[in-house]
């Protein structure tokens, strides 16, 4: 794919986002020594790298576990990150930022307190990761009855979780917050309204309901299909993601090298 084509993948300007994040990292980084990291990132001197959707899925999954979320939730987060990237809805810097902000101690306060619409946090805003998972878990219910939320951070992320569900053109959903509407099923997406609101870091409410996608035209100008290609990510952001993922790896020891992989016999014949 061409370089020009790839630049369009990020809604948020990757340079600006990367700079903001870099500053943040400088302040609060826990200084995991980079040289100890086993990197999957391409060796490149450029500021950007290209990553497959599978890499985004797997690295975000591990990063989510790395910040303290359970494996099952990490699985959903990896898939959501992949879906969002495939539809060019969000960029990896936002995912990193959201994961870094996750505090296990605060979990009880940022999840929906019950499943009654509108979903509300105990204190402050709902976390979009956990709220996205709840909406995805309740998709069958949402198909019958709309569901809303109260104050919610990064509303765009909820789309990533709903995108995992078995939605079809006949059984699609629409998500509304501020002045933007997302209409989608697993394989197609239409964005209506204010594109700028996709990037909101918080909204007062979000509304989710069933919609029939099959009546929409296939040639609508704002129709999106998932990309088939790699995603451009600033290398320092990717390294930050890998740093979080690194928390899931076990330190290398000679015992581990020999016994853990079981290669005790000569493999050089």
């Amino acid at each position, binding site marked *: 794919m061409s370089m020009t084509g790839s630049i369009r993948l990020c809604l948020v300007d990757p340079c600006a986002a990367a700079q903001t994040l870099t500053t943040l990292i400088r302040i609060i980084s826990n200084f995991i020594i980079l040289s100890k990291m086993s990197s999957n990132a391409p060796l490149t001197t450029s500021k950007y790298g290209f990553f497959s959707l599978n890499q985004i899925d797997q690295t975000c999954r591990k990063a989510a576990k790395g910040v303290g979320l359970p494996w099952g939730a990490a699985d959903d987060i990896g*898939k959501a990150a992949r879906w969002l990237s495939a539809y060019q809805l969000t960029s990896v810097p936002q995912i990193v930022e959201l994961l870094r902000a996750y505090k296990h101690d605060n979990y009880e306060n940022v999840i929906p307190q019950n499943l009654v619409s509108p979903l509300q946090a105990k204190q402050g805003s709902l976390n979009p990761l956990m709220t996205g998972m709840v909406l995805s*878990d309740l998709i069958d219910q949402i198909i019958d009855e709309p569901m809303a939320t109260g104050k919610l951070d990064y509303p765009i992320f909820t789309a990533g979780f709903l995108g995992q569900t078995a939605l079809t053109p006949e059984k699609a959903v629409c998500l509304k917050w501020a002045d933007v509407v997302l209409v989608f099923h697993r394989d197609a997406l239409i964005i209506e309204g204010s594109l700028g609101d996709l990037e909101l870091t918080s909204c007062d409410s979000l509304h989710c309901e069933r919609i029939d996608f099959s009546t929409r035209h296939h040639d609508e100008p704002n129709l999106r299909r998932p990309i088939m290609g790699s995603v451009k990510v600033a290398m320092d952001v990717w390294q930050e993601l890998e740093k979080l993922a690194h928390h899931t790896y076990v330190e290398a020891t000679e015992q581990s090298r020999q016994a853990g992989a079981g290669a005790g016999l000569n493999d050089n014949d």
Partner: protein
Amino acid sequence: MQEKLAEEVTMTPLRSPEKVMRLARMGSFHQTRLSFMRALLRYLKKEQWQFKRTEWEIDDKGVGHGIYVASNGQYTYSLVCFAHDLPPEKRSDRVIAEEWDATFALYDGTPTSEEIERLRGNIPKQEAGYCQQTELVLARANRSVRLFEHVVDRLSNGLQPDQDMIDSVGYLMRTSAVYGNGKFGLGDRERVSDRPEFIGAFRTELLAVWLIRAFTTDIVEHMAWVANPHKGVKMDPMLKRRLGVGNSTGLGMAPFLLLHPALIHRWITTREKALARVCGLLSATPETEKQFSDLVRRMIIGVDNWNTVDQTQQNRIIELRQDLLKLQRHIDPENQPNIWQSLKPWKQLIDWTDRELSLEAQELAVSLVIEPHGELVDDLSDEMGIDEAQYFPIQGGQTIGELRTNIEEHYQWALKLDYEEKSESARFWYVSEEKLEPRLGERFDEPGADKEQPLAFGRDVAILYRELAEIDANQKIAVFLLQKPEHRHSVRRVQTTAKLPYAEVQDNLISSIMRPIDLLRCKLSFFGASRFDPRSDRWVRITMYQHAPFPDELYQEGMDVDDWVYPPLPC
């Protein structure tokens, strides 16, 4: 025609998940005619794919590159091979190796000379290099030094290599990793998943391996010619065909098998369906009866050439040989009663193997009875893929009571175990920071269990079940998971297994007696591998494509694209 045949036959019931999904049995699987390599070659020939070596720029030291192209007119794939001069002390099959005798990329299309240079700068570095979406597969291989040198020596002196030596090793080079599906920046599976040649599973990787095999024999002939341009000869094609591609596989394959439950369900049920179709046949034709009898004889020869340094496997091979002789006697039409005269003879035969033979022989018998029935089962080869995503979402509307019932129906084997016993929790799966190699640790002797990978499904489901006992049976799962997100992976697993009962391995994957190579062998058998040679309980060498036609032989007169797995009978 095939569909009609399949409809006409009455399938016997599939063997149960409780019987099939046990590690000991899965670790006894053999390739079948549905295995991916075989299905791929059948497809390539049927669709008239063409193959060509388009570039060969390799110097006297064996350093340079070669390109092999596969094309059907619509799509073209180029295996770009880089040959290296590797110092012997650097030759290692471990994932942690950093240099290899040869490195490869399967490129989607025809690379320009600029692209080849880009690949030359990256592919030899493997994981540390930079791949793009146009690269579908990344692989590397090392020589079997003793066979490679023997063949170079013989050919350069105008002689053919020793057949016994070829048979005892089976390959000139063995791959130590074959990556695909978006790893390290490679093209995502979605890029090619709707192309008919890659329907099913792992066909992209196995196309690369088949072309790598051609490279291994070309490079050995090149080195012999370089050593002695006046006397050097090419290898006898019949001898050459006895060479496959070796592969060294470590624990990396095991997590894949465990983390793709829907896919595994599909692979296993497809194989079981093929067996059930054959077992449903009311009688055997004289042709299939003869073919089967020949296959048993040929397999005896195959077993004689199956060498391993692993004592456990060696004992199993010895027992297998005895079992094959027993089977040979059992199917003799002179016997009274004659099994071929019975109703549903294939079913009778499989039932007999269950009673009389070792697990290794029982599962070989499954492959052997399926083998003569291509028309009846080959359509199943295209059913090896599945849309895994549709099984991923959690049904949060399910009640706790329903989930408990699912667990009781599908996880009795896990609920019976006492995980407080050290032996039942002895191991933990982890990923090492060293090149992200998956490994297995001893929980009570090694650090790292706090970073355990979520692969102990039996234990985790048992813990979930205990916790559910305290919860109102009418409560929705979504509410429970909001409060207890640590059970999310187990709930997803149970819901998947309830829909796809062959998705779960019904053994404790962290027990002290678990043998990881059983998982590896199961997966490799679906690939179509043979000659399993365990190097430890978590490391196995295999051979791929041994006796298969080479790309330039596919359309040779008399070449049966499907009759290569079992060694030929002596003339």
